[in-house]
């Protein structure tokens, strides 16, 4: 009898402990993160024009410089880029074409990560934007290198915006273009993409980046 009661006691204590771990996130939206970083020395206020491609590339690994990069479906890209433009307009920016007679002040490069993580930005950005960036031939150059400490791990389905200077001659010490603003919305492009989640994340990215405002 005593053994039975002891067993009941032990089982009860075990169940009690098992049932006691607190709950975490319940919905996938609870895991959404918006990360922004910027170069504190870069004077956004003195700029006014920007250019961007009309597509959002997929980063699936090392780029094949002989092929055009894969892009995300237009239905999503259009909504994403429109939301970016709307926020930029609110901050006083004017959109121009990359090949306009007067070079844009800054260039924004959008991408979707299809890898589980990226360890070094340098590896994955090498060559992607050679075909778009004003003043550069396609392929084989270093399009961007952060000018500030960065988060080095992102999940699959992360939407990324990078801003570099529009002047092709403005490069860092290693010959690459410096990234002056970065935006990453973790996981918003996973599975069935919910455009509302994506546009909400973009709005949040701008909300936490008031230094992007121009004069």
């Amino acid at each position, binding site marked *: *009898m*005593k053994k039975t*009661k*002891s067993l*009941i*006691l032990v089982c*009860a*204590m075990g*169940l*009690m*402990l098992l*049932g*006691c*771990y*607190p*709950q*975490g*996130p319940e919905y996938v939206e*609870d*895991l*959404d*993160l*918006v*990360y*922004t*970083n*910027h*170069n*504190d020395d870069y004077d956004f206020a003195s700029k006014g024009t920007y250019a961007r491609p009309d597509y959002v590339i997929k980063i699936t690994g090392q780029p094949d410089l002989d092929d055009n990069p894969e892009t995300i479906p237009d239905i999503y890209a259009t909504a994403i880029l429109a939301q970016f433009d709307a926020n930029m307009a609110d901050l006083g920016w004017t959109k121009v074409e990359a090949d306009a007679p007067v070079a844009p002040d800054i260039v924004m490069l959008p991408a979707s990560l299809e890898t589980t993580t990226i360890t070094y930005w340098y590896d994955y950005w090498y060559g992607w934007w050679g075909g778009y960036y004003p003043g550069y031939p396609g392929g084989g150059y270093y399009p961007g290198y952060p000018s*500030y*400490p960065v*988060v080095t*791990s992102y*999940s699959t389905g992360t939407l990324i915006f990078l801003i570099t200077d529009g002047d092709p001659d403005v490069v860092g010490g290693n010959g690459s273009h410096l990234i002056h603003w970065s935006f990453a919305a*973790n*996981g918003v492009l996973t599975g069935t993409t919910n455009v509302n989640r994506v546009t909400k994340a973009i709005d*949040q990215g701008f*909300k*936490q*980046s008031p230094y992007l405002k121009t004069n």
Partner: protein
Amino acid sequence: MKKIIYIFLLTTLTAGVANAQLESGSGAFNSYTSVTYSVGFATGDMGEYISQPSWRGMTLEFGKFVTPEISIGIEASWNTFFEEMDYATYTKDTYSLSGKQYRYNHQFPILASFNYTLQGDEILRPFGSLGIGTMYSQRNTDMGQWRLKEEAWHFALRPEIGILYELGEGSHLKVSGKYYTGFSAGDLDAQSYFALNVGIVIMK
């Protein structure tokens, strides 16, 4: 529903202990065993990190009587604190991160205890205790798919006051308040919390 399960388990637990003792017979008290449910209220640095009380906690104590009033023992305790933060933006240097944080703080004190029990009228016995030992703290901050884990083994002290109410020969209901302080160590500053304990003490 969860609260009902906790109450059921606690009732089963305490009833089992009480019945087991009642059958064991009586005699002079040489030792004690205590099982208590513990509710925690974080203070100081821990209170700033998690403002919600801990409804998840338990304490086990064993000890020997040196005299009818004085006993020494050992205590192992556990409390888990949890708080789901609202969506917020956290900024450091040049970067900002927005999202929901899920904060967890697990406390595991392991202490030697020195207790003094007033004899009183033998139905109600006030007592005081001082615990000294170590406390393991683990603080987990979950955000998105990432977790920031900080941990420490603190040197810890714990004063306690409470009262024992005799339920039957050798078995007592225990109600007490404890204040755990773990001094700064490892990844964490000093961690402290107040614990309200209710449970059963069996004396043999």
